[in-house]
Every structure is written in C-alpha cells, then in structure tokens.
C-alpha cells in the first residue's frame, strides 16, 4: 500500500498518438491529476483557410489515419451544408456502408489489438499472437474484411479517395457488392467465437455516472447523421452545437477541453449505446445481453464491450444496406451531383468511432474557406478521463503501484483516445515523492 | 480464306452462344472517354461501337502488365518450376490494326527464343475481329494496317442487312458451323464488302508519309535542335509505349515472400522512355536524355523491325498520340522529318 504516490506514465502506449498521465497522491489524497497531451499541435483550422471547397475533406482526413473516413464525411457534410448540395440517396447509402466499416475496423483494432492484451495479460498483440493465436486470427480476419470494404468503396483503407463533396468519383461494381455481402455473411462465425472469448474476460467493476453525448435520429442507430443528444435529456440540431458545447484551452495540453451541461461528458461507443440502444439490430441486442451490457451503463471499461456490440450491429446493417443498394441498382448518373461553389456556413456532425465529431466551415463567394472550427472526440473526453481517474484512484489506492498504474492505463485505453486526432497525445507518470 | 455471310438475327444468337460457351472478352463502355476489353457475361454489356480503348486488348491478354514467369521454393533444397498459365478465350470485336499489332507481337515472341508464356496464351486465343471507328489520330492505312489478312479466326464485317465473314482458320470454321447458320458469300456480297471497305478507308483522316523515313531519319538523327524541339515537353512517362499495341519491353524481377521461402520471377511492362531503361550498375546511362530516348523509340517503331522482320513496329493506331499529355505526335513528327529534309 502506498500513501504517497507519484505516477507518471509517458507515453501511454497502445493508443493512437501520445499522451501523459501524471498523478500525485499525498496521504491517500489526490494532489494533482493531469492527463496531458503533449501531442504536437497541427493547426488544421489554420491550414484550411483559403482552400478550395473540394480540398478540406482531403486535408482533414489527415487529422487522423484511424478515423479518416469520419473526418472525410464530417468535412464533406459541412461543405455540402454550406453550399446547399444535396447528395443522392445512393451516395448516402454508400457513405453509410463505408462508414460502418471504418467503425468495424477501428473497433476491432481497439478491442483486439489495443485493449485485449490488458485483458489477457500480455504486453501486446505480438505476444498475444503467441499466447492466444485464435484471438489474433479472428481480429485479423475481421479487420481485413472491414478494410477491404473501405478499399472497395473508398479506393483505399486510410484516407479514402473516392468519397468527395457531391458524391463518389467511382462506384463499386455490382460484383464487388455481392462479394462484400458474402464476406459479411462469412464473418458471423468469427463474431460468435469472439462472443465466447469476450465472455471469459474480467471487466473491472467501476461506475461513475456522467453525461453521455452522441448523435441520434429516429430511423437508425445514428452514425452518419442526426441531432446531438445527451443522456441529460437535451437534444439539439447539429447546426446549433455551439449552444451546448464549449471548448477551452488548458495549460497542460495542446488538446482543448470541452464542456456541455456538466464539467465533463463522455462520447464514443458507450455514449451511442446509452442514447440509441433501441435502434440496435436484434442480433446486436442479443450479443449485448449475453455480455451483460445494458443501457444505461455507467462503467467506462464497458466501452470496449459496446464497441464489440457495434461491430455486430454494423455487420447486420451493412447487409441490409447492400441489399438496398443492389435493389435500387447502382447508377453511374447518381454518383455525383452538380456543384456550384458559393458562400455560406455549414456544420458537419458525425459519430467517429471515438465519438461525436464536428466540422464547422464558413466559405466565401469563391468557394474558399474563410474560417474553420473542428471539435474532435478525444478532446471531448479529456475532461471526463480526468474526472474518471479522480474517482478511480481513491477506490484502488490500497493496491500496489504497478496495479494502480495498469488500472489507470486501462481506463485511458478504454476511451480509445485517438490522440493524433486531437489535432491538437498519452504518458502515465507515477513516481514516489 | 473462306467467305460466308450471316443474317442479322443469326448474328445476335451467335454472339450469345459464344458468351455462354466460352470465356468471352469484348469491348464494354468504361466511362465517357473510353471502352475497355473485359470479360463479358451478358450480351447487354457488349458495345461493338467503340472508338477508343486505352490498353490494346490483345497485348493485355497475351502479355499482361505483370506476370509470374517462374516460381521457386527456397528451403534446404531449392525447387524451381516454370509458370505458364493459359486458358481458352474468345477475343471478340478486336479491330484490324490491333490484330496487326498482335501479329507483330506473335512474330516477336517466337523469334530467336520462343516465349512460352506468350505462345501458350496465343494458341488458345480465338480471335474474332470486327471493324471499329477510327479516332482522329489513327493513321493505320499509312502503315498498311487498317485491314487484317492474318492473325484471326473469323473477321466479321457489318454490311447493311447482313454480316460478311472471312474465315481464316479451321477452328473459326468449326465455331461458325457449331453456333450459327451461314451461307456462302456470292458476287453480290463481295461487291458490297468492297464498297464497304472503300468507304471505311475514307474514315481515316490522318495521312503519314512513312515511305522515305528509313533514310531521312539517319540524316536528321544528329540534328540536336530538331530533337530538342520535339521532345521538349516530354515527361519521360512512358505512356506512349505502354499504350502501344506493339511495344513489348519488360523488366524481370526476383522476389521472395516475407516468409523467406516462396520466391518468384515476375515480369512487368517497362518503357524505353523511362530514364532507368538504359541505366546499368555503376551508374552509366546509355540513354540519359529524353531526346535520346525519343529517337530510340522512333527508330524501334519505324526502322528496327523493318530490318528484322520487314515490317514496322507501328500499326498507326494513334494511341501514343492520344495518351501523350505533352502532345508529342508520332504522325506529325514523321511528316516533319520528311519536310525538314525536303526544304
């Protein structure tokens, strides 16, 4: 047992990017707890200024390689909204389809490659490949399927090419769609096996009720489009995000911190699950139940389970979308709509795998960006991560330093903080004073 | 050569039966600019009225852009085996100049050493030719290539109400007998065919004065100013070669999988317009400038094979003109060499 503790983990690994956690405990009381993002700031908001309307989606895609599709779509939607461009139904269906697969890809990566080594007590997916080869096999197959889908529809797995303002530069072929459908159906065996494996892991028992924010719409488990909704009971049109969400620059971090109703909130798979549980497919609900995940859930560690449930949902819904697209027939003429660049402001809101993502652009008459504001999910979670940590550390203060360090790291990883994406990184520091 | 005629309705059924009985490759619209020769599963995909195709169909099938030649296993013992893959295919709707391009490749790949990878595919390729609309850059009549007298099994010419068919092989004759009903061509049919060809030849607008090129080229060869002007905008991108139905240069690479066991030799299209083409170990480059390379290309196309095979390595399809973003135009340049020498 330790009375005085100085934990510093730098950098916290297996998160995409870098971040530091510093905890000072004196007489079992937290003196200082900072989750620091020394990730190099990248100034995307500045880079966008002056760029032509067809460029921001390519530029902002580079904010984060892991959720490049999400950035691409938030960007495209903001531009389309600003200029009154209405993509065709075919485009929207294809966008939703590719979107599911980034979500699967990212969730699988997170659950299996980044979080699973904690649950199985191995240091990395490489050692996991030796101790639990079957787990890694499943992960690689599922991830490959999702990446292949993004490749087929988007042209490549990271930073898609074909999705642009107004639609798609090139459509997948009917043949490719049918192959995708086959791959999806084939993935159920792996999902079943995953379920059995996940049932065996021990998820830490830690609850802290907080505000959960995600997008939501009446028709589906919202990922691509919807209002901004909170478990605190409010719901606003996405264009009015500034009414509720504020950003603040904090001294110890290059990532801005966000607030809504309370002094922190959570976004991500668990927030989506809590807000939109009833829109999950029956199959996904069944998986959730078997894994003991019920809405509302206040255990941050269950975020990983929510991610897995979403994978199941995305597989189901992709099959539905493919059938719909094929039924309507792939039509070259509907691939793109005409674009007339004009002045205007538009807000594009989507659910990135890590949660709510907002792009807000103002264009001038020449169709060039005058002003841009980007709010990134990881930024939104920082304050909440600190608050969670402040609650968790006293609960486990009786444990050894190593155990405390591991628990903190696991908690951070449960958030799947994509740090590079904070346009604006992770390290846990624990040193005895 | 045997000559037959086929009715319009019979033709459609004939094509349908070919599609259902063979691996069938034919022209399909790719986008607003070009057609592409692809496997066809249904007659509705087939579009015979094509004008532009980026990659020559026969070259793509017989000499693919990258191809495994040898496979080996590197263990205690090394096992080496040739990879020669081929399957029977119907190539439908290929035009005369592209057939002539293929005839050139046929000759090339069996001369000196026989390239089995090419030859096996060629033997199994059933070629059914049809005329297509020439592009503005096409000068195949100047190169004697707008008409094919060899290299195909069947050549179908669309007359007003029927099809005139030239049968060049026993295989062609059997296919025709098996999948359709035809009649012997009579005087009237020949008359109509001749008429058709007269009109067809009129569609080619570009005329190239190739006759004196053989000697004139040598005179102009050392005129650096001329070649600098011609090659000024050249990107050294090789598009002209890669899109050419008669270009055959390739690189051979050895590779091994990450398991460090399975290896192979593959070949991949190369181009004499790329700077590395003449580069040898130690850093000497036998053709360091784009001017050298362009000269080499013209010599290869228009002289080398006249010496070797008595024919040009150019069928005048105009593809190299269309694909060249630097607007380097072989037809114009042949003519301007003549002009340069004549004034």
């Amino acid at each position: 047992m330790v009375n005085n503790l100085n934990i510093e983990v730098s950098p916290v690994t297996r998160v995409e990017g870098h971040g530091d956690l510093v905890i000072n405990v004196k007489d079992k009381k937290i003196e200082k707890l900072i989750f620091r993002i020394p990730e190099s700031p990248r100034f995307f908001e500045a880079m966008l200024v002056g760029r032509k309307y067809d460029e921001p989606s390519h530029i902002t895609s580079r904010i984060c390689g892991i959720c490049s599709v999400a950035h691409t779509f938030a960007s495209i939607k903001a531009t389309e909204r600003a200029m009154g461009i209405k993509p065709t139904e075919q485009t929207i269906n294809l966008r939703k389809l590719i979107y599911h697969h980034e979500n699967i890809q990212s969730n699988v990566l997170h659950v299996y490659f980044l979080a699973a080594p904690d649950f199985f007590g191995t240091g990395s997916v490489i050692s996991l490949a030796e101790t639990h080869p079957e787990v890694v096999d499943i992960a690689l197959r599922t991830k490959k399927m999702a990446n292949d889908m993004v490749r087929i529809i988007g042209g490549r797995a990271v930073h898609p090419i074909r999705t642009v303002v107004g639609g798609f530069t090139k459509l997948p072929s009917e043949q490719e769609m049918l192959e995708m459908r086959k791959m999806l159906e084939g993935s159920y065996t792996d999902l079943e096996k995953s379920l059995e494996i996940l049932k065996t892991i021990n998820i830490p028992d830690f609850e802290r009720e907080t505000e959960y924010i995600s997008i939501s719409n009446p028709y589906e488990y919202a990922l691509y489009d919807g209002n901004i909704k909170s478990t605190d009971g409010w719901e606003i049109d996405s264009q009015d995000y500034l009414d509720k969400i504020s950003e603040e620059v904090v001294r110890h971090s290059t990532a801005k911190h966000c607030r809504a109703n309370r002094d922190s909130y959570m976004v991500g798979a668990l927030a989506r699950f809590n807000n939109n549980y009833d829109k999950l497919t029956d199959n996904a609900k069944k998986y959730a139940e078997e894994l003991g995940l019920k809405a509302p859930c206040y255990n941050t560690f269950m975020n990983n389970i929510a991610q897995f449930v979403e994978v199941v949902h995305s597989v189901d819904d992709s099959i539905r979308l493919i059938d719909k697209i094929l039924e309507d027939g792939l039509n070259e003429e509907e691939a793109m709509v005409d674009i007339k660049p004009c002045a205007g402001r538009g807000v594009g809101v989507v659910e990135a795998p890590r949660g709510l993502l907002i792009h807000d652009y103002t264009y001038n008459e020449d169709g060039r960006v005058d002003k841009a504001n980007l709010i990134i999910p990881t930024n939104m979670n920082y304050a909440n991560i600190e608050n969670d940590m402040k609650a968790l550390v006293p609960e486990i203060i009786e444990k050894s330093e190593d155990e405390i360090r591991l628990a903190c790291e696991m908690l951070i990883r449960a958030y799947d903080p994509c740090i590079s994406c904070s346009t604006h990184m992770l390290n846990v520091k624990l040193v005895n004073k | 050569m045997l000559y037959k005629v086929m009715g319009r309705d019979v033709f459609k059924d004939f094509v349908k039966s070919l599609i259902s009985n063979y691996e069938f490759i034919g022209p399909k619209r790719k986008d607003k600019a070009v057609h592409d020769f692809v496997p066809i599963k249904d007659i509705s995909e087939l579009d015979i009225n094509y004008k532009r195709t980026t990659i020559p169909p026969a070259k793509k099938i017989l000499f693919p852009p990258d191809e495994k030649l040898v496979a080996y296993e590197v263990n205690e013992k090394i096992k080496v085996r040739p990879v020669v893959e081929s399957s029977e295919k119907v190539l439908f709707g290929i035009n005369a100049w592209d057939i002539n391009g293929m005839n050139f490749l046929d000759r090339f790949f069996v001369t000196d050493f026989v390239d089995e990878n090419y030859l096996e595919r060629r033997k199994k390729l059933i070629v059914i030719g049809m005329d297509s609309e020439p592009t503005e850059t096409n000068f195949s009549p100047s190169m004697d290539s707008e008409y094919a007298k060899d290299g195909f099994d069947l050549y179908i010419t669309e007359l007003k109400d029927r099809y005139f068919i030239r049968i060049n092989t026993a295989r062609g004759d059997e296919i025709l007998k098996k999948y359709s009903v035809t009649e012997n061509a009579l005087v009237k049919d020949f008359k109509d065919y001749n008429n058709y060809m007269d009109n067809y030849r009129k569609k080619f607008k570009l005329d190239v004065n190739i006759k004196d090129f053989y000697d004139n080229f040598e005179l102009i060869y050392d005129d650096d100013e001329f070649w600098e002007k011609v090659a000024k905008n050249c990107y050294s991108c090789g598009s002209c070669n890669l899109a050419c139905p008669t270009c055959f240069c390739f690189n051979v690479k050895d590779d091994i999988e990450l398991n460090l066991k399975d290896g192979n030799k593959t070949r991949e299209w190369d181009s004499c317009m790329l700077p590395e083409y003449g580069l040898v170990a130690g850093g000497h480059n036998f053709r360091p400038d784009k001017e050298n390379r362009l000269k080499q290309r013209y010599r290869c196309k228009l002289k080398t094979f006249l010496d070797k095979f008595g024919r040009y390595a150019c069928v005048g399809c105009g593809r190299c003109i269309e694909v060249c973003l630097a607007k380097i135009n072989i037809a114009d340049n042949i003519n301007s060499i003549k002009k340069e020498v004549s004034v």
Partner: protein
Amino acid sequence: MTLNVKYNNKSNKSSIYVPELARINKIQQISPTEKLFDIVFEDDKNQNNFNFEPGQFVELTVFGLGEAPFSICSNPENKDFFQLCIRDIGNVSGALHRMKEGSKIGIRGPYGNGYFPYEKMRNHNIILIAGGLGLAPLMSLVKYILHHREDYKEVMIIYGAVNPENILFKDDIQYFSSRNDISICVTVDNPDAEWTGEVGVCTKLIPRVDFPVEDTCAVVCGPPVMYKFVIIELEKKNYSSEKVFLSLERRMECGVGKCNHCHIGDKLVCVDGPVFSLWQIKNLKEAI
C-alpha cells in the same frame, strides 16, 4: 530488305526463363572489388551439355534477390566447371560476394550468338585490348587461343586498370608473362610507389603495335567510355572493320532477346552480341 529471322530456340524446356540449379564450388578474392567464382551445375547432365564459346555469357539468379548477366571467363574446353569474375557493385553482385562456397544459384545460358570468332581469327595476329573488368570476357578467348596456340600468329594483350591493386587475374598475367609466345602489357591510371609498369590509358599503347594490317584481328572490351578512343586508334592503323571485334555491355533483363533493354538499332546485344564487328557497330548509331 532481307528477312533475317532465326527460329533457334535452343532451350527444349517449357520456359526460357527457368534457371538450372548450380553450385558455387570455389570463391577467390582476386582484387578488392572482384571475386572469381567456380560454378558447377547440380545436375551432371547439365554440366556435360554446357558448351560455350568465348565471349558468351550466362544469366545468374540469386534466388529471391535477382538475376544478372555475367561473361564466362574460363577456358571453353574446361568441361568440369566454368568461371565468372564478378565485381561487387549492386544487388546481385553484392549478394554473390556475400555467399559462401557451396551456395546454390541458378544459371541460364550460355547466351549470345555473337561471340569471339576464334575460327575466323585463325592464322591471324591477335591484339586483345581490355579495360578494367573488360578483361574477364577476353580471358576465355585468351585461354582458348593458348590451348590452340599453333593456329594463331602473334598474340598481344593490352590491359588497362585503374590502379595496381585492381589488376585482375594476376596469376594468369604472371603466367602469360612467363611464356614467350604471348606478350602482355599492363598499364594503370594511378600508379603506387611499387609500380614499375606503364602508366596511363591503354589506348596509348595501341600505336606501338606493329602487326601487319592485313592479317591482324583486334578484340576490345572495357567500360563504355573506352571504345570511342580505342576505335580511333585502331582506325588510324587501318585495320579492316570486319577484323575488329568489340564486346558491348547493355542493361539486360532476360538475356534471350525479349525484354529489349539491350537494343541498339536493329541488333540485340544479348542475341546478336555481345560481340560485334566494328563494321556492325559503325552501322548502329549510339552503339559507342
């Protein structure tokens, strides 16, 4: 216009690209950058059937890494093994230099219809002019000639190396010097303190040769820059362009006239060469 098409597919295998397995029997470091490799086919049948002419080359595969052409430098009448002299300069050559005796490689060939016409050269004086690694292909001819010494008149080797340590085949050169039926003159660009021989480029030595023009053949091989100057000197002497033979180097990817990289005019260095007469070369723009 004459048609000159040869259908002489020597290979009776299913593919001209498949190498036969061979073994490196012996490796000697003969200069700081060159090693001499003794090579034997794994299959005795292949070894017995391996007949080559002086000037021909083989395509050598280092499995998984690459293939490159190398001239055979041993006596064509030695049937037990053949030799390659290889400079460490790139991927394949570098890998060979790291290999140990007993390693397996792949061999295709011999290739090149244009070899040194040793029959035509009978009853002639022979001048062999080599620069640097250019000595390697000539060694095979020299060894043949020495084996049939009575068929030839005077034989002289002019060999230029960059510096004394880079002189190749030192043992052979020593042996040649000990014989009185062959003369050899070695020159270096950068002499060291011990060097007592000639200094400067090999072209310098050509004027000193005084063989009668009508029954003399010259043979040349060296780096690309050398040819032009050697030809000037030979032409000054009025040698018939049909009696001067040059071995050329070009990039080769296949060795069998398909990849076309070694094209010069209507000739392919791999099939029609690598040895050409000066007359052929004069008719090939850009050959030199």
